[in-house]
Structure formats: C-alpha cells, structure tokens
C-alpha cells in the first residue's frame, strides 16, 4: 500500500486499529493542548506557571470550586451524550445550542404560566416540557432530512440563530417581568421548581446525578440494545444498514430526537438551576462546546463523562483567568478549538503509524 510521505517520516497504515491509541488519543490531545496553551501564555508575556496555576489548579482547591466543576459539566455531559449517539449514526446535529434554548423556553413557560394549576406536578412537567421542547426543535431538521433530503447540518444550525432570536423576543417582550425595571428577563422561577444545591456551600444540584445516570443508560443503549446497534451500523455503512433492513429514516429520527431531548433537558436544568430566570443569554456556548466534548470523549459515554469534566475545567479556568489575570474570555474558546484539532490529529495514530523513511525505500 502506498503510504503518505510526510517530512522524513512516513505514515503507514496499520493492519489493525491500535487499541492503546484508542484510549490514549484523547489524553495525548489534552496534553498537546496544554503545551500549546503554555506556549501561548508565555508569548503573551504572562508568567506561564502562575497562569497555569490560576487556570487549572486554583479553581478546584475549594469545595465551591469542585461544585462548580460538576455544575458546569452537567449541561456539557447531557448535550454531548445525545449528540454522540447521533454522530455515531452519521447524523450531524450541530444545533444543540438551539435545542438547549427551546428546552429552556418550553420548561420555563410551563413553570411560569402553568405553575398555579399544576401545583406539585409543576416540577416534573417542567422537566418534561424541556425535553419535549428540545425534541420538537430537533424534529425540524429530522423532518426536512427524511422528507426533503435537506442536510441536517445547515437546518439545525440555522435554527440555533432562530432560537436565540426567539428567546430574545420573549424576554424583551411578552415574557418580560413587569416588575423587573425594564430588564430583559422573565419573572424569576418559583422556588418550588428550582433545583436546590446538593451540598452546602456549593451550587451543584441533582443535575449531575441525572447526567451520570443517563451516561450509564446511554452506555447500555449503545452496547446492548438492538436499536443502538442499528444506529451504529447506519453510521458505519448505510448500504449495509439498508441491506439488513434497518430503517434509515428511523435512525435519523432517533438520532435527532435523542440529541434534541438531551439538549432540551440541559437547557431547563440550567434555567431551573444556577440561573433561576429566563434571560437573553443562558449559555456560554454549551451546545457547541458539547460537540467538542462528544469528539474528545470519542463518542463513548465514559469518555464523554471525562471530557465534560475537562471542558468544564476549561470554562472555570477561563473565568478565573479573566478575573485574576485580565485575560479575555475568548481564551477559553481558543483552548477548546485547539483541543479538538489535536484530538482529530491524534485519531490518526489509531489507524496509522509513523516510520522513518529507510534508505533505498521506493
């Protein structure tokens, strides 16, 4: 087999994918990202070691910090679990951010306007509405793909912008709190539906437990169920899936609804949790960061759990660096993008190996 020649080294295909590299590629990518981050900080004239401490160590030395780590990991984990199931089926839902928003809107709507009638059922109804809201938003690209062959990439992404504009409309207009001094936000959610902190002195709530539970569920779904197997085959070989009689339409719907439902749940957890109110900005890009989490987690629930924690740490580190080092907020985004690049490159080594070109090689 002809190999790609790259500098004095050559990439040779492996006879069989490398097992150790499957596991190591993500940690190696993270390491590479850290090294690059170190270099960048030095380049910016910062005391890189001190900066690293501010970024990666200090936030987690307190109980509150650990709580924040888990709190921020929750929406990432929830979204990424849903997205990964879809990506394995080659269904490219990149509108998790929009489905997150719709879930938050739907759930908040139930809490704010139906709270009176539903009484003690408000809380579960709110969560259900969140899931359904996200699913409904994801149903649009699913419908357009199965009926009209339209790429779900574009549709789901356009719907992100539309969702954000819709949210803006609601909180500036019909849902604005009349007693809120013209602030663009809704009435605060009633205490009875808010997620309470699990541990005294932190903000972490039951969301993390739900996310971890769902991670286990997704693991079981992917490895032990026929539906999970069908999704996987439709992603690996669509022709084989059709040969086997697995419905392609069914796979697309399942993949999109899983992604949308999880993102919607994440959305309502965020509003019913740390935010407590519906406002124009309810996410620092969790829906997009979750895409990275899904890949860094190698589309596997266990990997996603770990990758969520890593990404959450990046968010927290970024916030801490903003305050203490006056670094811009965008440095977090930069780290995230770099991490994904390194991961994609590292995946290469699962299927290829580096060899030095020997003398006399053709």
């Amino acid at each position: 087999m002809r190999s790609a020649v790259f500098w004095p080294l050559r990439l040779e295909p492996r006879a069989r994918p490398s097992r150790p590299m499957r596991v190591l590629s993500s940690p190696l990518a993270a390491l590479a990202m850290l090294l690059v981050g170190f270099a960048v900080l030095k380049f910016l004239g910062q005391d890189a070691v001190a900066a690293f401490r501010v970024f990666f160590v200090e936030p987690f030395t307190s109980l509150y910090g650990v709580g924040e780590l888990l709190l921020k990991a929750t929406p990432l984990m929830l979204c990424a679990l849903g997205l990964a199931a879809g990506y394995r089926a080659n269904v490219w839902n990149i509108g998790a951010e929009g489905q997150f928003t719709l879930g938050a809107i739907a759930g908040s709507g139930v809490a704010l306007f139906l709270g009176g009638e539903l009484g003690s059922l408000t809380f579960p109804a709110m969560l259900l509405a969140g899931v359904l809201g996200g699913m409904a938003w994801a149903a649009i690209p699913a419908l357009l793909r199965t009926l009209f062959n339209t790429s779900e990439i574009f549709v789901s992404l356009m719907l992100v912008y539309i969702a954000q504009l819709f949210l803006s409309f609601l909180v500036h207009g019909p849902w604005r709190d009349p007693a809120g001094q013209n602030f663009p936000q809704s009435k605060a959610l009633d205490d009875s539906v808010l997620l309470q902190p699990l541990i005294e002195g932190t903000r972490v709530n039951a969301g993390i437990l739900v996310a971890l539970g769902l991670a286990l569920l997704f693991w079981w779904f992917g490895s032990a169920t026929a539906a999970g197997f069908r999704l996987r085959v439709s992603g690996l070989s669509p022709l084989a899936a059709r040969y086997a009689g697995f419905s392609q339409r069914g796979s697309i719907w399942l993949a999109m609804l899983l992604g949308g439902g999880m993102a919607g749940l994440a959305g309502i957890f965020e509003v019913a949790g740390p935010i407590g109110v519906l406002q124009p900005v309810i996410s620092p890009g969790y829906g997009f960061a979750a895409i990275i989490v899904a890949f860094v987690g190698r589309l596997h629930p266990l990997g996603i759990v770990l990758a969520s924690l890593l990404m959450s740490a990046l968010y927290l580190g970024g916030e801490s660096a903003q305050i203490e080092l006056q670094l811009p907020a965008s440095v977090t985004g930069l780290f995230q993008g770099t991490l994904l690049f390194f991961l994609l490159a590292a995946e290469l080594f699962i299927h290829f190996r580096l060899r030095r070109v020997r003398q006399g090689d053709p």
Partner: protein
Amino acid sequence: MTPRLRLRGIGKRYGDLAANDDIHLEVAAGEIHAVLGENGAGKSTLMKIIYGVTQPDQGTIEWEGTEVTIASPAQARSLGIGMVFQHFALFETLTVAENIALALDEDLKPAVLAARINEVSHRYGLPIDPERLTHGMSVGERQRVEIVRCLLQSPRLLIMDEPTSVLTPQAVRALFDTLRRLSDEGLSILYISHKLDEIRELCSRATVLRGGRVTGTAAPATETNASLARLMVGGELKECTLTPREPGEVRLQIQSLSLPTDDPFGTRLVDINLSVRSGEIVGIAGVSGNGQKELLAAISGEQPGREPAAIRIDGRDAGTLGPAQRRRLGLRFVPEERLGRGTVPSLSLADNCLLTGEAAGLLRRGVVHRAAARLFARETIREFGVRCDGELSAAQSLSGGNLQKFIVGREIRLAPRVLLVAQPTWGVDVNAALGVRQSLIDLRNAGCAVLVVSEDLDELFSICDRLAVIAHGALTEALPTAQLATETIGLWMTASAPHA
C-alpha cells in the same frame, strides 16, 4: 531481437503478503502476450507496476533495451505504455471528449481532439461519439472509449486488464478483430485474463502466475485447457457437478414487476416475470448496467415496490415489504458488495452476524445477544472453512474469497427457503470459488430455491438448471440450460440495443 518490454525479478510486498515474487516477463514487438492467472495470483499488482501506479520493491524493468523506472502513469504514457482498465477509469459526468482530454498529456483544442477521436475510432472499428456524456453509455461503449483513449497516444504497448469479463460473446469477437489488427501494425499487447479459451484463441505467448510467482510460460495455441490449468492452479480445474432433479413447488414468484428509478444513471425495470422452484438454481445473465442492481434491490426489499403481489415468497405477498420482513418469510440475500453492504468492514465477524441473524435468536426483544453471535460466527467459520483470525477479527481483514465464504455461509446457515446471490465468485480465488459454487448446489439439492445473478457466463452454465437474460431492464424467459448455447445468450444480451 530485443524485447519491447522485459521484467526481471520484480517483487512487491504489501505487509506480510508477497503480491509479486521474482517475476520475469518478456513481450516482443507486435506480440499478443497473455498474463494468465486466477484471482489473487498477482496479475493486477504486476500491471500497476508496469503502468506506474505503484513501484516494485525489487527487480528491474527494461523498455526497448534500456532500464527504466516508471514512477507514474504519466511517465508510462510518455514511454508508450497504455492501459485499458478492467473497471473503466471514466468520469460519469464528463463527455467522451473531456474524458479523453484528461488522459492526454497535451492540451488540444476541442475541434482538433474531436477530429482525432473520430479518425482513430473509424480506423479500428470502434464507433464512439465524442460529445456524449459517459454516464448513459453501455459497457461495450465505455470499453471502446478506453481503447480509443489509449490509442490516441500512439502507444507501443497496450495493457488490457480482463477486457472480456463484461462483454457479450459477439462483442468479444469484435474486440479480438481489433486487437489482431493492432498487433499486425506492431503494437504489443499484454492481455490479462483467466479465461483459457480466449487466451488459446488470441495470444501467441502466455506467462502464467500463481501465488505471486511465475509458474511457467507457454505458447497457448499448442496447449490444452488442461495443461494451462495445471500451470495456473497446480492441478486439474475441478468442476461442479449438477445432477438433474425434479424441482418442487414455486418458492419465489415475480409477476409483472415494473419499477421506475430515481437514479439518473439507473435502469428502469419493465414487466419482469420469473418463478424459481424449490430444488432448482435459476441464473440471470446479462451485461452489467442492464438492471441487475435494480432487480436485486427489488427482490431483496431494499427497494420495495407498490404492488404486494408483484413478488411472492413461499406463497406470501412480499412486494411492499422491507428486507427484514422478507427474511422472516425465508428469503436470504448474498449481495455483490461484500464490504460495505454484505458486511460492515470495521465490525467483527461476530457483530456482522447481527445484521441478518435475527432468525437465529441473535437479537431478541430489543437486546443484542453477543455470546450467541460469537458462537454463530465461530460455527460458520468452521463449517465453511473461512481463513481468518477468529470470530472477532474485522470483516475488512479477510481476503475476498474468505469473506465471501463467510457471507454465503452465514446466509445458508440461517436456513433460507429462497436464496438470492449476486456475483457469487467475482474476484474470488479458484478454490474458494469452487467451494461457494458447491455450497449453492448442495443448498439446491436440499430443496432451497436459488436465484443467481452473474456476469460470468461460464459459471452460470456450470451451476444453473435454467437461465434467463436481463437486458435494458427486461427479462427473457428462463429456459433449461441444457437447451441453450452461449451464442443465443449473447444475442439476447444485445437484443434491441441501440448502441451495442
């Protein structure tokens, strides 16, 4: 006299496999030289080396007496070597002229190019239209385009890779006339094939490959099929025996099946009628691109129709059902594409049993039974002699022949009432091919109804009780093989074809 092309000690390894080992080859000017070998013998690799697509690990190539390194197809062409590929190297959405222009190394004005194309095509009896888009063309036409493309560069050596595997018997005659004319003018031809009759008719010398090495050279005209076969496979070419038997009830019934197609490159099916009975093998012959793909998809359920009664499996209406439902009625299918359709390349053999193994209890109540799948795979491997690294090895790690044995074995072990098979031994080495054909015959003897769609006429004649031909989406009547001759089949294949 110096040979035009001489290969000495050519070797090429792919990992552990020696695709070519110490190959010697000599072709004289104006000679039609056969490279004979079964599938997997190393013929394709050798041709890729000569045409510059890949480089040898060892050995030398001499062109007209001078040692050369052929680093790329462009360089091969500049030396005077042309190649007509087995799976034509044409671009579907470009015209004939554009396709040819790409292969030429000089930039010609469209009018000049068209004139040259017409001149060559008339001179050698290869009619083509420069302005036509390739995608609508028949296989015979495409091959003519390929040949004209090569001839426009005034080659001195023409490599033809399995040229007749896709032609009707009549088209083969026409091709041979053209090749003889060309060799009379001094063009050397390297003719790669495994078809002994053709080689004995056309070629003056033959180099025989087996397992990557040269087992001998011969003058085919003086040899018999048996002696050539001995060089090619090291023994007698075994044949399958088909003892006549009385077929039973109708298991597969296709009635007035018509199917339009969404694919602009596809073929409409027109009023197909066929019945296959228990205990018989029916074959469908035809040149590729005449509706085989569409017919197979219609029968398997991958492309369901609107008429429930158009396809009946074991007496039950199935025309609107999907593949999984048709499996439950007893229909099983071995598709043409082994990797990517019959199996998922990156999944293990055990996991690949889950694709169609519902009937064996591998998928029960929505849950996957991994242990059962592994057991099933292990037994399939054992019973059908599949050479692999165990049931957990990936499908893509198996050789073509072994993968086909696995897929055929998997489907046979799931006890079909009707078995549909496409291109059962294409690209498969001789021993595995024999095994597959014998399995089909054994299945037929056990009472299954078998339908085989193939482009290999010899194979169809050796294993089918009845034979039909598909052309332009229509099917002829299926008549007993004993009553048919290859010439008749050839005529049916080209019946009412506007361009042959």
